[in-house]
C-alpha cells in the first residue's frame, strides 16, 4: 500500500530533475529559432521555426573556420595523446623498474596543475617555438591535461591484462613494439575509445589557453569565438546568433556522448572508483 505514493514521489522527483537538467539546452534551441522582436518575448513552446540565426552564423566567415579549428585541434590532441600514452602505459604497467610508481604518481600530479600556473612559462615556450596564434600551439599545450589522464587510465587498464599473453609473445620472439601493436592494441580498443572521447571533449571545450595563445579570428577555436561574439554595444548582444552557434557546437557533442554513454561513464569512473 505504501508503494503507490512513493512511486509518485519518485516520478515527480525524476521529472523535476529532468527539467532542471535539460531545460537550458531546450531553451537555447528555442531561442535560436526565433528572430527579430520575437527574441525578446519569453515563450515556452516553439511557435514558428525561423532558421535565420543559423544562416547568419554560418555566413560569418570565421565561424566555419572556428569549427574546423576546433575539430583539427581536438582530433590531433586525441591521436597524439593516445599514441604517446599507449607506449608509456606499456612501460608503466608491464615492465618492473626502479621508480616506476613514483613516476606514475608524478604524472598523475601534473593533472592537478591549475592551467593558470603554467600560463606565462607556456606562453614563452609557445612563442619560442613560433606557435603563438597558431592552432598547433594549442595542440601542444592541451597535452598538459590530456596526457596525465590518458596515461593513468590506460596504465590501470593494461595492468589488468593477463601476463600469459605477453609471455607467449615473448616466447615467440616478438619485440616490445610488436607486442604492443599486435597483442595489446586490439585488447585495449574499448579503453582507448573511452579515454579518447574524454580527451576529445576536454580539448573541444578548453577556453583559457585558447583565449590566451591565439589572437586572430582565423586561429580561434569555437569556445573563444562564442565567448567573444559581440553586438553593436555591450548591451546589445546578438542572442539569436549566440544561441544558434551554441546549438551547432553542442548537438554533435551530445550525440557523441549519448551514443557512447556506457563507455564514457566507465572511462570517467575508471580513474576514480577502480583507482
Amino acid at each position, binding site marked *: 500500500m505504501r508503494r503507490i505514493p512513493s*512511486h509518485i514521489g519518485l*516520478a515527480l522527483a*525524476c521529472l523535476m530533475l529532468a527539467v532542471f*537538467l*535539460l531545460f*537550458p539546452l531546450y*531553451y*537555447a534551441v528555442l531561442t535560436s529559432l526565433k528572430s527579430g522582436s520575437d527574441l525578446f518575448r*519569453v515563450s515556452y513552446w516553439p511557435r514558428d521555426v525561423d532558421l535565420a540565426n543559423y544562416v547568419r552564423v554560418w555566413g560569418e566567415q570565421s565561424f566555419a573556420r572556428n569549427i574546423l579549428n576546433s575539430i583539427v585541434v581536438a582530433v590531433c590532441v586525441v591521436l597524439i595523446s593516445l599514441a*604517446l600514452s599507449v607506449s*608509456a602505459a606499456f*612501460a*608503466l604497467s608491464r*615492465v618492473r*623498474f626502479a621508480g*616506476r*610508481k613514483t613516476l606514475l*604518481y608524478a*604524472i598523475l600530479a*601534473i593533472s592537478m*596543475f*591549475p592551467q*593558470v*600556473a*603554467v*600560463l*606565462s*612559462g607556456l*606562453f*614563452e*615556450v609557445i*612563442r619560442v617555438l613560433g606557435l603563438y596564434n597558431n592552432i598547433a600551439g594549442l595542440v*601542444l599545450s592541451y*597535452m598538459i591535461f590530456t*596526457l596525465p589522464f590518458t596515461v593513468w587510465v590506460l*596504465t590501470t587498464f593494461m595492468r589488468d591484462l593477463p601476463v600469459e599473453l605477453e609471455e607467449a609473445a*615473448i616466447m615467440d620472439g616478438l619485440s*616490445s613494439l610488436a607486442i604492443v601493436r599486435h597483442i595489446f592494441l586490439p585488447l585495449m580498443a574499448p579503453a582507448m575509445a573511452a579515454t579518447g572521447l574524454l580527451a576529445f571533449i576536454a580539448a*573541444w*571545450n578548453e*577556453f*583559457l589557453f585558447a583565449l*590566451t595563445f591565439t589572437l586572430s579570428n582565423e586561429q580561434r577555436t*569555437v*569556445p573563444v569565438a*562564442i*565567448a567573444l561574439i559581440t553586438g553593436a554595444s555591450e548591451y546589445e548582444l546578438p542572442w539569436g546568433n549566440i*544561441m544558434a552557434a*551554441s546549438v551547432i*557546437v*553542442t548537438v554533435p557533442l*551530445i550525440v557523441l*556522448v549519448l551514443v557512447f554513454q556506457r563507455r*564514457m*561513464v566507465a572511462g570517467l*569512473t575508471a580513474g*576514480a*572508483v*577502480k*583507482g
Partner: protein
Amino acid sequence: MAQRSLSSGRRRAAWLFLSPVLVVLVAVALWPLARTFYFSLTNATLANMSDYRFVGVSNYLAYDGGRWYGVLSDPQWLTALRNTMVFVVVSVSLETIFGVLIALLLNARFPGRGVMRAAMLVPWAIPTVVSAKMWSWMLNDQFGVINDVLVRLGIIAAPVAWLADPSLSMASVIMVDVWKTTPFVALLALAALQMVPKDCYEAAEVDGVGPIKVFFHVTLPLIGPALAIAVIFRLLDAMRMFDLVYVMTGTTDATMTLSMFAQRELVSFQDVGYGSAASSLVFLIIALLTSLYVMTMRLDLGGRSG
C-alpha cells in the same frame, strides 16, 4: 643469465617507450611551471619577455615608503581569494550533497532509469562557455526566462539583475556550476553505490534500522572513498575556476577568481612578473589545500599497489 639480460633489455625498452610522454610533459608542464616561478621574481613584461631584471620577492610582497606592495597586499587579489574560497566551499558542498541524493534516486530500479542517466550526461557534455552563455541568456534581467518564471509564480515581484547585481552574481555563478558538475559527482557516487553488496541493506532491514540511519551508518561509509575522490576532482576544478565566471560576469570584483586575477595581470595588463606571482600563488594554494585534504581524508589515491 639470459633472464637477466632479457629483463635489463626490457628496462631499456621501457624508458624508450616512456620518453615521448616524459619529453612532452616536461615541455608543457614542468618547464613552464618552473619558468613561471622564475618570472615571478622579475619585472618581465609580455611585450618583451627576454628583457627583465630581478626584483626579488617584491611581486609577492614589499614594503616601501610606509606602504605595502605586491600581490599579497593587493586588495583586489584578497577579494579574489575570498571569492574563490566562497565559490569552492559552497559549490563543492552543494554538488556533493545533490550528487549523492541524485545517485540514491537513480540507484532505485524503475522504468526510465536509463533515460535519466543519459539526461545527466547532457549538462556535463555541454561546453562550459556554451553553458555560461545559455545561462546568461536565461538569467538576463530584462528578457530572461528565469525572471519570467519567478514573477509568474509570484516568488519575486519584479525582475532581478542576477548577473549585474554584485550581491547576486556569485550565487548565480555557483548555481550554474552546480547545474553543470553535479552530474559528475552523481555518476561517480552511483558507480560506487552499485558496488555496495545487497546483503548490507538486507541485514539492516532485518534489524529494523530506519532508512536515514542506514544511509549514514551503512551506505555513506561504503561509498565514502569513491566520494572523497569525486570531491577532490571537484575541489581541484573549483579552485582554478576561470571560464564559467569569465564568460558569465566578466572581470568584476564581485566574482573575480584567483585564476581570473592572474590571467588579467598577465594578458590584459601585460605584467608578466606580477601575473606570474599571482599564478604561482594559485599553484601554491591549490597544492597546499590538496595535500591537506588528502592527508586528512587519508586517501589512498593509488588503490591497489601497482
